């Protein structure tokens, strides 16, 4: 039975098309946006509460269900800053986190360069050894490491906080994989030009690795900024104390927690790694998905 294209049928086809187009271009995006906005709010709710509380006075937060920002922000942040010496602690933590991140980048790049571009005896063995560090997190070797550091006289020093973290399986693996994706033409050409390996490393390899360097910096900086157990054991004085331990002190100062002050400390402490995250997140995503050549 062949269907004649009556005006009526044509109209209904067009209506169907229009309905589908509406679903695809209007209804679907609107619904998905609504869903994602809800998801984002739920995921960020703890942070939102932390921020709101950091502006409230104790009279404000004692009212059950009060989620309006208060006017006590300046006082809360000042008290938190002074009581936990946050300025000093953030300086200490920055010194340690930046030196570990930079140290790891340099050392793991050197190791990956050696493994990929040279004939090296026992290369697989060395790589395996470095990978093993993944399975030996600090708690597994904590007592002897602590004893080793105290025999060096490194308790309560920046090097005691930083040096045990310098070896990086993540970094070696990341750079190693990336170097293997590069063509050998670059290195061949520079060798023909009479350039030595170190010239090649600095002139070519480091510039093309920018994305990976950014990604690794973000990962390691955040990792060190958020360290807790090791600083708790090693850094006792305010000269070396790390910022996470400062948060513990804000809780421990009183029998009853001053939530406004504590949350002011919390928000202050989150800001540096959050800024690093926002600045470097493009590198992180590109570095992790192996799109390292598209450098901008």
């Amino acid at each position: 039975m062949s269907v004649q294209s009556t005006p009526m049928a044509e109209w209904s086809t067009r209506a169907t098309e229009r309905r589908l187009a509406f679903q695809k271009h209007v209804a679907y995006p609107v619904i998905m946006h609504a869903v994602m906005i809800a998801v984002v709010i739920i995921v960020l709710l703890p942070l939102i509460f932390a921020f709101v509380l950091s502006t409230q006075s104790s009279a404000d937060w004692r009212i059950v269900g009060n989620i309006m920002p208060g006017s006590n922000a300046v006082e809360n942040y000042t008290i938190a800053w002074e009581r936990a010496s946050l300025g000093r602690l953030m300086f200490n933590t920055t010194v340690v986190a930046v030196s570990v991140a930079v140290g790891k980048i340099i050392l793991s790049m050197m190791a990956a360069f050696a493994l990929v571009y040279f004939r090296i005896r026992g290369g697989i063995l060395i790589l395996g050894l470095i990978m093993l560090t993944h399975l030996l997190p600090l708690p597994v070797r904590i007592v002897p490491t602590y004893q080793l550091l105290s025999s060096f006289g490194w308790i309560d020093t920046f090097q005691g906080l930083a040096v045990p973290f310098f070896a990086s399986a993540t970094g070696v693996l990341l750079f190693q994989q990336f170097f293997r994706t590069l063509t050998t033409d670059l290195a061949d050409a520079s060798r023909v030009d009479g350039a030595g390996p170190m010239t090649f490393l600095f002139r070519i390899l480091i510039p093309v690795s920018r994305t990976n360097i950014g990604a690794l910096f973000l990962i390691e900086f955040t990792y060190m900024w958020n360290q807790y157990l090791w600083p708790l054991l090693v850094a006792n004085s305010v000269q070396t104390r790390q910022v996470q331990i400062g948060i513990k002190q804000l809780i421990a100062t009183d029998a009853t927690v001053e939530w406004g002050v504590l949350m002011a400390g919390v928000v202050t402490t989150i800001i540096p790694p959050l800024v690093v995250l926002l600045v470097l997140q493009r590198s992180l995503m590109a570095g992790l998905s192996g799109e390292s050549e598209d450098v901008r």
Partner: protein
Amino acid sequence: MRDYIFPNRFLPYLLIAPSALLVIVFFIVPAIQSLQLSFYRVNALSGRQLYVGFENFTRLLTSSDYIQSLTTTGAFIAVVVIFGLSISLAIAVGASLPLRGFGVYRTLLIWPYAVSPAITGAIWALIMDPNIGAITNALESIGINFDYRGNSTHAVIFISAAATWKILGYNIVFFLAGLRNIPRDVVEAAGLDGANAWTRFWRIRFPLLSPIAFFLLIMNTLYAAFETFGLIDITTHGGPGRATNLLIYKLYSDGFKTQNLLGSASAQSVLLLVFVVVLTVIQARTAGKRAFYR
């Protein structure tokens, strides 16, 4: 086989020496010493060590404290890994839709990545506070009296929820990177074949994501076992009673608070390592197989 490009003989060893040295000094040697120390009883004052064979291990494995800590940790890891991975996968898939404006969501959703376990503890102690917490209030309105400081079950739920939330940012970052890597034409080709979105995801995209899911499974296990120390130390201190005394927290209290238990603490370190390796192998066997070879 790849050609090695630079002919230098000694330079590569020089380049790799610092990394190798650090691994040996700060990883291999202390790990061996941990193993060695676990066979001794150490007197904290005199520093004298007495060889006791497997005594530290048998004591631990027959003590109800340790067994309780072990089972709590196992349950905690399972909950954090299962919820952490499934929630973040669902969120990442939603956020990766190619719609205008979704980049903003992707940026906002990875914020928890910047937050430490200790700070997570402080924030969740606030929102689940028995008196003023927002979640506590919401639960109260449906008739649940939530008190993580007094109730053991609530305490375990509390640390599990906080630990799961903290790992979301990390997992979402990796899932988003993985989803970005899947070529669009692969998914579109499946769409032309008439597969619906659900089938398309599990048949096409999920298998391509499985290496990342597997990597995250291992990393989340290590995180739940080791990195959650700060969360516990800021909030429950292992309590109430011993309800949240996870292996890592017990190791710390025995090794650094109670001075005469250094040998036992080392034995706990060794068992922790065994525990993690076994868990990793089991995961590699089950999840790894299903993920890679279907």
